[in-house]
């Protein structure tokens, strides 16, 4: 198990450090602080680096953890170990409340919101009577096991670092799972994930809570390490510092959090002890250096130190090759009341005054390849978005197998066996082809976040990856299975999207310009694949501009122009249809 080796070595080194003769006790205190900061930063890695949700307010969650145990142990005499689950619970509940409000916010509103409640909560901590106002709460009992009271930094060191190691392990397990892939897809927007059944708001809330619970754990440890809690370490400044740590270490990497915490805590210590000698007497000078460093770092190395370090190591981690012999059970079929697979009846979409799709009606039968063609701006992709629930139609009815899906969310449409690709490729570039394709099988797996963290999902996971590998093989990208999706050519990325759509085990495949960017031979291979899919019982609805490709492949063609259906029929009939020729070539043709 070469994956575990570095971790075991790191654990051994950390365990040995306190026993090295001559290690100053002060170093142990620093290491304690690094561990505490690393816990919070690890949550931020998941939240910001992986999930794309920037939070400046994590320090407030440390506050919830710290104050919970502080109040319960001092005022009510509860044992510190009993307050641990309560501290985590309080941080988690606070995260649920704040998360419900904030994670739905797009882009820059979220970080601004976190700054605001970060400050608000800081003032709340410093004004509430039962939290001791600005003075905080002191005299918090130390942690103890049996007769061992963890009074000095050297003993609580082990508790802190065991917490760090366990959290790192659980976080890495989570990221390498069905739920983890859904989280990693968040940063690239919600449309792609939702098209395969990912409940993005729930996934966002999950990482938000996860990050808050890690911060709460850090706060609980902090309270018993300092044996006091006051508002200062839970303010906006601290929140900014945690984000700084994550960015320095490498916001997308679990170990980047530990590395970043090490760099920042030590740097801060050095700056605090030497800067006053240079500038004379002033305090808080380290923030100047911090601020400047943060800006320089973003300009020179925006991905942080950890990936930079890893790319310089001589060995590369071995990739796992999935065992393709495992069978994934077929998708649960929806009950069908009709032989028509897709029925579109007077579908209409208006954007303000623009009618993008104007009362379009057509059907797709089982085992049929239907092409949707038309000049640019004819409303083809909008029609796709109406069918898959990305957009809600203004009026009209769309049904799949007799089930009405107009205005159903994308997650419901995919459950009926409708899967799609996108005109603008929506893959996660820093995930491998295998991981990207496995997102397609999201609804066919069942393991949740908790079972993933404790590796109880391995059987489920192996079946999902096996299915993904089979579909990659099927579309002819077996050679590229381990490569990062972003490193493939655009044409190949489109094929990866088809493999991902096939993982749904679909009845109807919606392909948005699948042949764009493909070479002649690749197009022929794609056409052969689509025919083979049809012959095995699948239907395909495709938007395509390559007329040669469409005319050879499609059983039936629907032509749109300016949002209106102008013709429908076999390729032969469409080629000679005067309206179609007029739309494509102009009036005089």
């Amino acid at each position, binding site marked *: 198990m070469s994956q575990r080796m570095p971790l075991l070595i790191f654990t051994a080194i950390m365990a040995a450090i306190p026993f090295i003769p001559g290690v100053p006790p002060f170093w142990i205190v620093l290491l304690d602080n690094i561990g505490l900061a690393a816990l919070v930063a690890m949550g931020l890695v998941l939240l910001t680096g992986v999930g794309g949700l920037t939070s400046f307010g994590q320090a407030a969650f440390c506050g919830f953890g710290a104050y919970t145990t502080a109040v319960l142990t001092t005022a009510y005499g509860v044992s510190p170990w009993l307050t641990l689950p309560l501290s985590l619970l309080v941080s988690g509940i606070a995260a649920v409340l704040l998360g419900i409000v904030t994670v739905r916010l797009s882009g820059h509103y979220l970080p*601004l919101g976190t700054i605001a409640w970060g400050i608000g909560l800081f003032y709340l901590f410093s004004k509430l009577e039962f939290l001791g106002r600005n003075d905080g709460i002191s005299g918090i009992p130390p942690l103890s096991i049996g007769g061992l009271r963890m009074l000095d930094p050297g003993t609580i060191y082990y508790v802190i670092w065991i917490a760090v190691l366990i959290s790192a392990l659980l976080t890495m397990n989570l990221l390498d799972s069905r739920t983890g892939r859904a989280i990693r897809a968040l940063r690239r927007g919600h449309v792609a994930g939702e098209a395969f059944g990912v409940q993005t708001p729930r996934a966002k809330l999950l990482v938000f809570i996860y990050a808050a619970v890690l911060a709460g754990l850090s706060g609980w440890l902090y309270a018993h390490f300092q044996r006091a809690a006051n508002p200062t370490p839970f303010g906006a400044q601290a929140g900014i510092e945690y984000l700084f740590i994550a960015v320095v270490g490498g916001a997308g990497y679990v170990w980047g959090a530990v590395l970043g915490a090490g760099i920042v805590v030590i740097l801060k210590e050095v700056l605090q002890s030497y800067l006053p000698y240079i500038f004379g007497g002033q305090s808080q000078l380290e923030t100047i250096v911090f601020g400047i460093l943060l800006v320089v770092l973003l300009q020179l190395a925006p991905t942080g130190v950890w990936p930079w370090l890893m790319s310089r190591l001589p060995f590369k981690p071995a990739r796992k090759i999935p065992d393709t012999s495992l069978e994934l059970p077929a998708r649960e079929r929806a009950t069908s009341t009709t032989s028509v697979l897709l029925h579109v009846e007077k579908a209409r979409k208006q954007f303000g005054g623009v009618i993008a799709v104007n009362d379009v009606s057509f059907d797709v039968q089982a085992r049929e390849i239907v092409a949707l063609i038309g000049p640019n701006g004819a409303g083809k992709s909008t029609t796709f978005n109406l069918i898959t629930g990305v957009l809600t139609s203004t009026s009209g009815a769309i049904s799949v197998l007799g089930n009405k899906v107009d205005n159903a969310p994308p997650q419901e449409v995919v459950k009926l066996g409708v899967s799609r690709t996108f005109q603008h490729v929506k893959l996660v570039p820093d995930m491998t082809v295998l991981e990207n394709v496995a997102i397609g099988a999201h609804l066919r797996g069942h393991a949740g976040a908790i079972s993933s963290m404790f590796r109880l999902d391995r059987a489920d996971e192996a079946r999902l990856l096996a299915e993904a590998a089979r579909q990659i093989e099927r579309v002819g990208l077996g050679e590229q299975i381990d490569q990062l999706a972003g490193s493939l050519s655009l044409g190949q990325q489109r094929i990866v999207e088809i493999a991902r759509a096939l993982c749904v085990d679909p009845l109807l495949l919606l392909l948005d310009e699948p042949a764009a960017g493909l070479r002649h031979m690749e197009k022929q291979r794609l056409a052969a694949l689509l025919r083979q899919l049809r012959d095995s019982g699948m239907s395909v609805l495709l938007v395509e501009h390559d007329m040669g490709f469409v005319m050879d492949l499609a059983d039936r063609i629907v032509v749109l122009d300016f949002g209106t259906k102008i013709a429908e029929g076999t390729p032969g009939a469409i080629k000679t249809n005067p309206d179609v020729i007029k739309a494509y070539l102009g009036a005089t043709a």
Partner: protein
Amino acid sequence: MNTTIMLFLLQDGITNGAIYALLGLALVLVFAVTRVILIPQGEFVTYGALSYAMLATGQVPGTARLAVAMGVVAFGLDLYAARRALRLKPVSRSAALNIVLPAAILALTYALAGPKTPIAVNIVLSLLIVAVIGLFLYRIAFQPLAHTSVLVLLIASVGCHLALQGLGLVFFGAEGLRGPALSNAAVTLGPLRFTGQSLAVYGLTIAFIVGLWLFFGFTLMGKALRATAVNRLGARLVGIRTTLSGQIAFLLASVIGAISGILIVPITTLYYDTGFLIGLKGFIAAIIGGLVSYPLTAVAALVVGCVEAFSSFYASNFKEVIVFTLIIPVLLLRSLAAPAVEEEKD
């Protein structure tokens, strides 16, 4: 509560609100043009206010030296960016802007600073100093990042805030400062007394709102600035100098920040870190305005000011808590009103 108290609180709220409105406007301006969420806006306020207060005591504020130092860095960056094609004209233009201008301002400050310098001169000096700091801040910190995402810009913005606030402590010390009033005139209207100071606050706020609205809605330059925000590449293709747009936005923001600072420093004592909180309250207003609407931002700022005034009367302990949690329902409404749209990132 009687009417008089209510009127006093309202007056207080509106005066503060007007300041928040000015800052909110500057934030909207910078965001609309550069996509930078300008956390250091608060530092422009303190730099303006405390430079003015120090000049009033006859001292030369450290900010004037900072401007020179930042100019040198900016000049270095310009030289580095043009290292493959160093031509005399752009280099000398850069030297004039980055070296000569701040040096001239520093020299002027040394020449004019004294206990008897007229208030108007001090105001002009502090505005000049903060204006060039704003200009150089864009050149140094944000211009190299102009193509990156809003989030990267935001983190950089926080970095600038930390550095500038720390420098503020070095320049002005931990003690608060107060500046002389701009005018001692006062008008009494019923139970209320309007000082010349607060009338100046109202007047300038209204002038800026109208001015910005006219500038962005009706001038070619204003429209060019807005185009830069929507699509940098597109703006460049039609001949808009996107760098210039960013510089103008930062210049305006720093001047507005410094003016707000000079307006409030005679009313309340300002500390080196006060600006952050004041700026954040401007933010709340800007967020209510969706970071795009000037009039809505101004109205929201007045609401924030009044909420602050009333909560400081009824629950003074929880004043800040109330003001900052005000943002939560606002964000909730925003998210319900405008469901998250797909963003193409990276």
